[in-house]
């Protein structure tokens, strides 16, 4: 794809020493990276640890990222390599899992076998994700035609503002505003589900 990388502005900020810009990329890609790792590693407990390791390795290697590929493609490769490395270590040393090695200081007296399932796998968590998915779909359906088309062309088709402006026959500024208003409208329906705990922790 010849289209410029959507993450280029944030990557540039990170290269100039802005750690927060990297956190923004983490918030953006954490779900996709965890799903990718989850497909490679069977133990759900290991997935967040390997994802953490992936982002740390990416952060360290970022000065060498030249933008030859999209940032996400590059991050994806790091995730695959990190997961492979963890699987190899597990094969070599099957009893010591990453999470155990990370040191759960406080539960030293508990036997290691009772690995409680992570929140990604509990029925509550599954229900919460389902609710989020249906809230998003419901909110998209409720949008006006203009807003729905703009957000769909952007998020599903991956078109640039310029391409969407051409398709919708309107100025780029209008595209920007429609996408923003669509996001706000959907987020308004999503917020009660997302802010289940202390909402100011982000």
């Amino acid at each position, binding site marked *: 794809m010849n289209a410029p*990388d*959507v*993450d280029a*502005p*944030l990557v*540039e*900020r990170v*290269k*100039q*020493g*802005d*750690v927060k*810009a*990297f956190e*923004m990329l*983490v*918030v*953006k890609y*954490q*779900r*996709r990276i*965890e799903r990718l790792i989850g497909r490679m590693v069977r133990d759900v407990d290991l997935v967040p640890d390997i994802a*953490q390791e992936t982002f*740390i*390795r990416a*952060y*360290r*290697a*970022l*000065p*060498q990222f030249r933008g030859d590929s999209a940032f996400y493609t590059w991050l994806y*490769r*790091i995730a695959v*390599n990190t997961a492979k490395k963890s699987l190899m270590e597990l094969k070599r040393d099957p009893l010591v899992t990453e999470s155990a090695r990370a040191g759960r200081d406080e539960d030293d007296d508990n036997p290691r076998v009772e690995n409680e399932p*992570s*929140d*990604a796998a509990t029925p509550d*968590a599954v229900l919460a*994700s389902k609710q*989020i*998915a249906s809230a*998003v*779909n419901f909110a998209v359906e409720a949008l006006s035609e203009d807003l729905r088309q703009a*957000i769909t062309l*952007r*998020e*599903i088709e991956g078109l*640039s*503002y310029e391409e969407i402006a051409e398709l919708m026959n309107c100025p780029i500024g209008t595209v*920007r505003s429609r996408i*923003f208003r669509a*996001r706000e409208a959907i*987020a308004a329906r*999503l917020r009660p589900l*997302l802010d*289940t705990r202390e*909402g*100011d*922790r*982000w």
Partner: protein
Amino acid sequence: MAIDSVGDSAKERLSALADGELDPAGSTTSCAAWARDAALRADWHAWHVIGDVLRSEDLASNPGHDRDFCAKLRLRLQAEPVVLAPAPAIAKSAGARFDRRARPSRWTAAGAVAAGVVLVVGTFAVVRPGEWPAAQVAGGDAPVSIAASTVGVSPAEEAAPQPVAIVDSKVFRDAQLERYLEAHKQFAGTSALGVPSAFLRSATVDSAAR
């Protein structure tokens, strides 16, 4: 919902940044606002969940999990040395970009000239070691002249590599690279040979990543 126009446009800019449609100056402002404002961070998360779910419903993960993940990673990032890439300065305009690109060639040209002068002088000193110092001892008699020339040979040869070293350390490095290497000295095994080892280490990470 009462939305003041300033706050609204900051949000709209952040939305544009999410799509990679914001210029460098706007990105800088937006990132700073994100770092300051917890509400903007919550928006940023919500918008990306929306995008993820629109593309694939199984990406709708537990929001509590997302927050924990990011909080944990933030702690780990705080322990990391700040990343600084060698090339970028604040690219405010396309002009600045071109300036940056032009600079290495200017330095290369200066370096080439310096190296050329060194080469000529060095060659001269090596090929005709006796005559140069001898000429400086003008009007001296023969034994003095010979003594001067024998002494003169070795300083001339020693002097030749000296300017080359200066070319290596000063002219071919630019100030930004210098700062980068300074910042990453802790990665390099040795400070004197910081240049190659810093890059060697990075290359290992990079190739592992690919």
